[in-house]
């Protein structure tokens, strides 16, 4: 039993996590003829709360409630894993990444997210404006413009061998590399790191 608890509290390797995520695709299809895609939940949230007569948000969202129930589950799953299955050790970060991020001004390498950035103290600061408001906006705007995110395009789309999803995934990566390698350092300097 102790061994099991040890195992469950360790970080899971990619070859366990990846296949489990991949199995979500057939699970959703077989459970209810649903295609995997999480960014849709953001659209449904708009359609329910602030449709404002915009045609893009005028559809039968009731039929898509399953998607919101699913993301609620993801939130609850995050809570369960953190509360009951949490890794007691500090996160292991690649040495080079840690060195590079330390040079950018990150000091907290103990948890999954650096508290230098992701804490309530930053909400009304330039840091919060960039990392929460701007970052979130780009994620929401970009995924909807692209018609999907990592789940809808990279996993569901490529799994069903659809080349437009490969194009989308390629540009997810281009944007991510460019932000990380080129824009992140000056942006962090700008907001006071």
């Amino acid at each position: 039993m102790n061994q099991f608890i040890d195992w469950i509290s360790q970080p899971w390797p990619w070859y366990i996590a990846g296949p489990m995520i991949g199995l979500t695709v057939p699970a959703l299809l077989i459970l209810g003829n649903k295609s995997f895609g999480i960014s849709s939940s953001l659209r449904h949230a708009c359609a329910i709360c602030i449709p404002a007569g915009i045609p893009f948000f005028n559809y039968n969202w009731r039929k898509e409630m399953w998607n919101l129930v699913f993301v609620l589950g993801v939130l609850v799953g995050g809570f369960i894993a953190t509360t009951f299955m949490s890794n007691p050790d500090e996160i292991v970060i690649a040495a080079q990444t840690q060195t590079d991020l330390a040079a950018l001004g990150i000091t907290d390498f103990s948890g999954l997210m650096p508290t230098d950035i992701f804490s309530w103290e930053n909400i009304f600061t330039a840091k919060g404006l960039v990392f929460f408001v701007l970052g979130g906006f780009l994620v929401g705007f970009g995924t909807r413009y692209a018609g999907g995110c990592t789940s809808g395009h990279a996993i569901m789309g490529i799994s069903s061998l659809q080349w437009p999803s490969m194009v989308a995934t390629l540009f997810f990566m281009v944007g991510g590399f460019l932000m990380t390698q080129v824009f992140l350092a000056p942006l962090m300097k700008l907001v006071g790191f």
Partner: protein
Amino acid sequence: MNVKNKNIQEAVCDAPNLQETGEKGFALIKYLILGILFGIVFVKAEIISWFRIQEMFRLDSFHMYGVIGSAIVVGIISIQLIKRLKVKSIAGEEIKIPTKEFRKGQIYGGFIFGLGWAITGACPGPLFAQIGSGFTVIIITLLSAIAGTWVYGKFSDKLPN
């Protein structure tokens, strides 16, 4: 099997419910359970970590490539099996997968999402798991992502697509 239907595409985007049999209330619990499992994997494999996303875009770790790559391999095999064995959904319906038509948005939008992904360290799924993990400030990021989605919806017909 692949449904080519403009209405489906336009109406419900990337993750449509193509089941004809209605589902309400209690029937939705299976998606809650699946979501919970998914959220647990997100946290346990540290996919929700801003550091893991930084490692990925700095090419310092194989972890995220392994996760996404093996998920795709399992997804491809599963869909091929469903197609070849003509597996039906539990409601007894033929399984349908909508065709994704190419649009310029996949380039522009994909690029914009990529920029945001590297800033927040999260695609939409991990946002929810981060909040559940106690990083409650990510609620702001989520609200901003919903705002971004809304702004796209508002101006979608004016953007190149």
